[in-house]
């Protein structure tokens, strides 16, 4: 007779062995702040740190993708390759205080994923940042999005809009694409939102994060 509790324990411990390996060092990269204009702060403990640059998204892009705006799906590189090559990491920053802060990153071991740090707002303006493969643009066109060119710090991209949705796809070079998707964007605010998107260097990013409530610890 199998003891169900023992069987559960055994199954869970075996399953836990498949968990990803935790990072050896801790970098509190979700240290971001929000001071929405015209309204109360979302979280009091964040307000004290609202002095400097507000970071809305960070994209860690790993190299080795081979996808253009209309190209086939990309290939990924290993995490170790990404860590060894700082040039393959990008941060996307939004410094408009009107928008609630979200950090996002791309995991190095997957084609794409999104990450959002819920700041407790109602969801307005919070972006999802993903790395898209080549089919994204076509899918957006089929979904009825309007298309217009944009540039983020001189990097050309395309803005796709539909009621309440704004999706920016920028070509990061080597065929890699970063997609920043905003939902519940009030009409008339898309342009100003896109204008606030910037790329920053690692040091600028870390400086901004350090000025928030939680310092970078490496």
């Amino acid at each position: 007779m199998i003891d169900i509790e023992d069987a559960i324990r055994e199954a869970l411990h075996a399953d836990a062995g498949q968990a990803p390996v935790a990072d050896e060092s801790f970098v509190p990269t979700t240290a971001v702040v929000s001071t929405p204009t015209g309204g109360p702060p979302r979280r009091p403990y964040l307000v004290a740190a609202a002095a400097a640059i507000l970071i809305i998204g960070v994209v860690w892009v790993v190299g080795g993708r081979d996808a253009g705006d209309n190209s086939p799906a990309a290939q990924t590189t290993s995490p170790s390759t990404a860590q060894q090559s700082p040039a393959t990491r990008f941060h996307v920053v939004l410094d408009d205080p009107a928008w609630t802060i979200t950090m996002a990153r791309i995991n190095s071991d997957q084609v794409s994923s999104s990450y959002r740090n819920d700041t407790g707002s109602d969801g307005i303006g919070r972006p999802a940042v993903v790395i898209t493969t080549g089919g994204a643009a076509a899918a957006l066109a089929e979904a009825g999005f309007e298309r217009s060119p944009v540039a983020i710090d001189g990097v050309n991209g395309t803005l796709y809009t539909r009621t309440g949705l704004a999706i920016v796809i920028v070509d990061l070079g080597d065929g890699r694409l970063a997609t920043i998707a905003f939902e519940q964007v009030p009409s008339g605010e898309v342009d100003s939102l896109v204008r606030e998107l910037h790329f920053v260097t690692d040091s600028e990013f870390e400086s901004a994060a350090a000025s928030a409530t939680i310092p970078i610890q490496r």
Partner: protein
Amino acid sequence: MEQPEEAARGSFAHFYEQERQSATRLAWLLTHHVSTAEDVTQDAFTAVFARFDRLDNPAAYLRKVIVNAVYERSRRGGRERRRLALVHRDAVTSIDGPTGGLADAIARLPLNQRTAIVLRYWADLDHQAIGDAMGIRPSSVRSLCTRATTQLRKDLFQ
């Protein structure tokens, strides 16, 4: 002389070293999604870091934050998937499931039952500690565990 803030960071580093893998495993067991587990864990440690010197039991707080984060992500998962579907034609976000058998049956349990089971039989917590992590009464934990094991027994022996 070591400044208080530096000392706190030092002890946090020790805490992180001690807890990082088990926290990641807990998040993994509750989500079965690599990047979600990593993100939940990162968020949880960030939350602990922000108030580390004020916490009596940072490990318990860490567990609670992980459980809450998983519940929150579960709630908003539908909306996220709909949005990602707008920009992804191909399946791009992997769901890394268990390998089969009882692990699959556990993964199919409702989230509250799964959470109770994971905390009970993987983390070896008592009903009180599980209740603290899940924000429910110990009697509710007991009920969840009973329902879950009944279901799993059914799955296992059918």
